[in-house]
């Protein structure tokens, strides 16, 4: 089959590529774009290591074809920090040791991003339920739950700070 031209916005940059129609989005991201922070863990869309945001929603990029990303906006783990400054969720995962081997981490963080966008103040039970599509074999999840709870606090503090600045202006 002939390659297909796709246009998408990846981590804020417009990108045009030619891809094989059968190519999975995760392989396009990793191999064509060189963004290797998105991982492949299971091939059966169970583990969530490949989670990215497509038009703002958490999606397992092994369940989508690259051609389906045409015209869409994709955010990967590499697109989360701004000018070298970590996103509060990334900071929280470091601070609360929400990782050991680091392999599931990108997917965990992208899922957390989506969760905290929907629900700014999730309970532990809500966090655990929302992580049902992301597997971690190292941490026993407790430090991941703690990281997400802490991230929600950091993000609230960030907003308060920003609001404060706006009031001053």
């Amino acid at each position, binding site marked *: 089959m002939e390659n297909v031209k796709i246009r998408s916005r990846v981590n804020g940059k417009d990108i045009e590529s030619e891809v094989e129609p059968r190519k999975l989005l995760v392989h396009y991201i990793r191999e064509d774009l060189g963004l290797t922070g998105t*991982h492949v863990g299971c091939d059966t869309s169970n583990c969530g290591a490949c989670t990215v945001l497509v038009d703002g929603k958490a999606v397992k990029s092994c369940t989508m074809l690259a051609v389906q990303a045409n015209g869409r906006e994709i955010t990967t783990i590499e697109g989360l920090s701004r000018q070298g400054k970590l996103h509060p969720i990334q900071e929280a995962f*470091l601070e609360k*040791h929400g990782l050991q081997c680091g392999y599931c981490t990108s997917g965990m963080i992208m899922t957390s991003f989506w969760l905290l966008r929907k629900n700014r103040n999730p309970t532990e039970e809500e966090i655990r339920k929302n992580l049902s599509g992301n597997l971690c074999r190292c941490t*026993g999840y407790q430090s991941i739950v703690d990281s997400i709870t802490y991230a929600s606090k950091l993000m609230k503090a960030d907003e308060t700070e920003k609001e404060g600045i706006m009031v001053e202006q």
Partner: protein
Amino acid sequence: MSSYFTRAKDDLAYNERVFVEGRGHFVDDIIKPGALHMSIVRSPYARAKILSIKGGMSSKDLGARMASVGEGAMEGKNSVIQPVFATGYVNYVGEAVAAVFADDRYKSEDLLDSVEVEYEPVKPVVSIEDALSSPPIHQGLKSNIISEGWRGKEFPDPASPIVLEDVFMNRRIATNPIEPRGIVADYDGKVLSVWISTQSVHSIKEGLCEALGLGPDAVRVMQADTGGAFGSKGGLYPEYVIASFAAMKYRRPVKWIETRMEHLSSTSHGRGAKGIVKIFAERSGKITGLKGEVIVDAGAYGAGMGEFASRFIATMMTGPYMIENAHVKSTSVLTNKVTLGPYRGAGRPEASFFIERMVDKLADELKVDPVDLRILNSSESKFRSPLGMEIDAAKPFLDQAVKELDYRRKAKSTHNIGFSFFVLVPAFAPGETARVKVDGGKVSVWLGGNSHGQAHEVFVRKLVNEELGVPENLITLYRGDTGMLKDGVGSWGSRSAMVGGAAVISACRKMKEEVITKFGKYSVQSLLSGAFDVYVNEEQKGSLNSFGANLATVDIGKLGSVKVRECAAYYDVGRALNMDMVIGQIQGGMAQGIGQTLHEEMAFNEDGQLLTASISDAGVPLAEDIPNFEVKVAQNPSRLPHGAKGLGESPTIGVPTALARAIEKASGKRIRETPIRPEHIL
């Protein structure tokens, strides 16, 4: 596009921060121009004669046999050592039959269809019982028994009034790190360079040299960031030999990345052990003797953990208890399944399950509190068990554990409670190697055993700082690299902070002496102004103990679903070098203990077909399946200079037994196996 070689040198360091930014260096992230991608044609049968193979690379091109290296490695009989490619017969579903190579993974997977293999299926040997009653699966053997022996001395049955016997099973499970296995191999005409996800670059190098007949100077093995391992990435696998051979043959880099399905079918499984235990006891509860047998399902080939595990389990069958007489038979048998390998605990959880289940059974027989029975059978002083374990005074720790876990109060308010007690004997001998180098005002460290998530860099920075006074930000631990450290052992058996730490200290002390020789006295400034390079092989003999206890409470739903209400630990970790890392290791291991007990199994049908062929079916627990853990530690220092003990495997030993007891109490059904399914408790 990112390239492994364009990254800065510091990127070869272990660094937690890179993972939250997606800048890790896992083996699949290594992109080498001109690389071939390898895919493996695998056996669809558990046992079959290979009539013909058309296409691909196969045993006619590479007739090598595997080498036994890493944890549990043994000298093996030629007839049970796995060939790199299946030769004449296939012996498990997923065994490598042929390999194909193409410019990318899609094309190499397409090529799988171009290889034609004709098989003549043969009835497989699937269970331990089948193995004992069937003719050997390999020609040249007398039976399917590949190792057999006894631990302890034969003794006449004691005249004790209580005699109890039972049979237990820990079914096979997959290690399932979230990163599957993988390798990149490249050859420049002189040196084979290998990047790999591993627990030990040194065992991989040793294995490749032996399997391919290469000299030590012809192979360099470098560790990529390793996304979990839990025992399964310590040794050599056929794919590593094939990829290396292909890189040398085609003179192109070769990459192989395992799929999850391949991981489940073709990466060694853990557990897979049956225990038959008979205990003799007085009415007081004092256990006077133990007789038993351990039979391990070693899978289709020997010379590794499968052969070794039965003896290892048998040695630990009296647990931490003072039992004067014990005699245990150990047997490992061949079956038509993927080989058995180490999985976190690697024999220790199995032995503990067998003895702890019997102690609980005895408590029920005598109608006494199972914890009182444990205290009664624990020793005030150190002793050597009749099976050959050196055990420290167990009772003082146990008394403290009962208090720390608040057992007495909880046992009054909760019927569905389980309490376990164990001794972890970590892989202390033969020690570990370390290299410490000072150059340009910075300290670089390499360790023989390589981190796959345990944050070795944290204890290395701390110990070097303590010994040499160098600020931690000037100390870097690099990933495993046989080009930078000539030999070493590996990260398994709860050993790294313990024996790797001791090696780092020894290297630092040697370096301090060199500084004193050169400058007359030691100062951080003189050290950092100079250039020093110290290698040590810090040997360790004998053994160490880490005691531990767990408490669990559960609720059981109408349909037999188990809800873990509470899961607590009290472990002696020696001196905790970093409490956050200690707690992280324990919490992660406790989740794996719950996994083994409630969810995880590698199940096969009578044809030897794997029934649990996705990571979900394999039962890796979800966040929702796991409670918050209560973790407490004792810090009784070991005899090592930094006081560390082993701890990584404690939770997978202690959690299944405590949980099994809680479920037994809640259901009223005797628990004899893991995983515990609803049909066992309804």
